[in-house]
């Protein structure tokens, strides 16, 4: 009887051990996780700034901020968002198409609730559109590499930390001291 018990325990253990070790026994070169840390960080930061913009707007609408503060912070955040989007486009130019892919993906996954779909994107879309309009200006940079040196002042560039406007050649933000990613003229 004792031996049956030990046998069953052994069997269970072997099954469990095999399940754990199995992935290591596969042949061929080990696939390595390729994740662009910088891109992930930038996308998360962008998401976060968009959330902050929405929160700020809502706070303003319920009277927690006065007009002046709202304008000031909103402007700062939007510039920050533009700065981040500029960088994202540089790190991953294909991410411009990501929004389209995303929308279709969401449509596929979403349980259709017609009455719910209206207000939600409205807010997002407002911010995205506004930022996109600024982005278009910025997007001109990689397209005209020669202009980047001469006419750098025409292209608005913003600190991703505090949203202050920064000069093209600066390596650190003059307002908050944050290190600035270089706006490379050639996308990677």
């Amino acid at each position, binding site marked *: 009887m*004792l031996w*049956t*018990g*030990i046998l*069953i*325990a*052994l069997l*269970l*253990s072997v099954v*469990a*051990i095999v*399940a*754990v*070790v*199995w*992935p*290591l026994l*596969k042949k061929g070169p*080990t*696939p*390595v*996780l390729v*994740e662009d*840390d910088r*891109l*992930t*960080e930038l*996308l*998360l*930061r962008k*998401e*976060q700034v968009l*959330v*902050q913009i929405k*929160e*700020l707007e*809502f*706070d303003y*609408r319920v*009277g*927690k*901020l*006065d007009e*002046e*503060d709202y304008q000031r*912070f909103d402007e700062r955040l939007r510039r920050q968002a533009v700065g981040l989007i500029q960088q994202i486009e540089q790190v991953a130019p294909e991410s411009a198409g*990501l929004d389209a892919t*995303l929308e279709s*993906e*969401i449509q596929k*996954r*979403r349980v259709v609730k017609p009455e*719910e779909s209206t*207000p*939600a994107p409205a807010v*997002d879309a407002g911010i995205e559109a506004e930022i996109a309009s600024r982005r278009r200006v910025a997007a001109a940079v990689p397209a005209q590499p020669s202009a980047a040196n001469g006419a750098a002042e025409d292209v608005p560039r913003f600190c991703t*930390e*505090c949203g202050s406007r920064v000069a093209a050649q600066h390596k650190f933000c003059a307002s*908050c001291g*944050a290190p600035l990613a270089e706006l490379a003229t050639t996308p990677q």
Partner: protein
Amino acid sequence: MIFDIGHLILMTALVLAAFGIIAGYFGGQRRNTRLITSSFNAVYAVAVLVAISAGILWYGLFTDAFQLSYVWNHSERALPTFYKFSALWGGQAGSLLFWCLLLSGFSAVVAFANRHKHQVLMPYVNAVLLTTSLFFLILLVFATDPFKRVGFVPPDGQGLNPLLQNYWMIIHPVMLYLGYVGMAVPFAFAVGALLSKRLGNEWVRTVRRWTLIPWLFLSLGIIMGSQWAYMELGWGGYWAWDPVENASFLPWLTGTAFLHSIIIQEQRGILKVWNVVLIWLTYFLVILGTFTTRSGVLESVHSFARSDVGPYFLGFLIIIVFGFLWLLFDRLPLLRGEHQIDSYSSREAAFLANNWLFTGIAFATLWGTFFPMFSEILTGQRISVAAPFFNKVNGPLFLMLLLLMGVAPLLGWRHTSLSAFRKQFTIPTIIALITAALVFVFARSLYPMIGLAICAFVTATIVQEYVRGAMARRVTTGENIFIAITRLWSRNGRRYGGYIVHIGIVMIGVAIIGNEFYQQSVSVTLARGETVNLGHYELEYAGIETDRQPNLMEFSARLLVYDTDSGQVLDTVHPKRNIYDKTPDMPTSEVGLRMTPFEDVYVVLNGWDNSGSSATFTIYVNPLTMWMWVGGIMIAIGTLIAAWPHAAHRRTETVRSLVYAPGD
């Protein structure tokens, strides 16, 4: 034979947990997907093996396998099946196995839910969760084997501790354990973030829901524990600041602080170090609580040496402290805040004050809990601090916290101007002043006046928040008020669900104030037909009945409750005493209760003469107690609203899964 399987597969689980830690760590370091997959499988395998093992112990309890020391000590043939089930966590070895079962189950759920997300973070998260599991498996295999044999087969067991034979005792520990165990998850994410150097917002955003859920369990566990104490212990109260209660309350305090301070990190990019420290403290307090309630170290330092798990816990606690601090100092440069606090009249400043208060209360409670131990070590004499110490120190801190709960949400992030300030605070302040005046007229005492005024203030701020939020939605969307409110929940559940939780806390505050300052009580011996007056009630003793249950004798007194003004019978209450066959010297009490929103009539049966012609009672009138339980329900509802996944969140999740897709 089957019980050998239980023990042996725990050993296999131990080995696999150790392997999974290594696979997770190196898989994360080298980004080796095979090692990472292996770490995931280790999490699942440990969960399955521990579940089988727990199943085997349950089988032992249900089949009265008294050859097992655990079953012999914590069960008996006549024990109702219900309690045989809960006997799994009625003793030390079983409860550690149960801990391990819930932890490994929780880990498996976390691993499965995130198998395609956070691919850099997850291997480390697996490793940290498995480290906690490993510790408990070491305890189970080497220190307290739940499958230990007696050496012979006793005819019957010794029975379960009578205090645990109560339906609240089935659900309350489960809730607490789920809360305890669940706090390992946010800690694992924090350590994962430190190890992977991914210290941005990724872990903070993910961890919010994984903290809210255990926080809810912990809150409900604490409230159910109070309910149990109120209904079963029969001393008229619900909270005594005893070490076991404090053990569950401490991680709740730091966990609540953490839930608030991660919002600041998310919104403002500050307090990064503070947040990892808070969740580490929470985890540390969870393990410390599990330790103190099992080692007996708080009853007497000497029982620590006799405890078979004490040294293991101490070792693990030391590892948690030094391991974490080393990691934290190593990563400190990466935890630089992105901003400074702009202004002290801002929400982040108010949240920061909230954090100080929570931590202050936690330290005072910790100090009071461990004071007897320190005094015994230093002076050889045991000096206990009791409820008055805790009330005196924590009472004012809680009041300030309550006040902040009203103030903070009304402030804007970054800066609130004077005009906005005035706009937000005028109405709630007026309501608070009116309440204070009313309390002053009816019951002249200072503390309840301040307390109730603050409660009214907070309630007013929350109502105002809802009204303004709904109005803001109406202006843009033209929705009617009900739709606008449900949309507030679905679009901004974090904030508006949080307000519901706050309402729950206010209700609990009101109940505490009512009980602390307006409780009335009397102890009397009544002959049959005799009456006693308390408050505006008159109670008449109408006799005692006995009822034979499977493993106990139930004595149930009957009292009629009259309204003194009208003379009408309002209710009949039945305070009871249960005398257990196996432990007749440990009778348990069940109070007789008439509960109304305004006050409870609460009767404890202390004793009776043999014929039942007279009996002794302690009778309490507890004002507003019901609101404590209603508050608990509100906390549950609010937390669920806050944690519910909604459209915007799903969107970001989708973004992430798309971003990661190329790496798969």
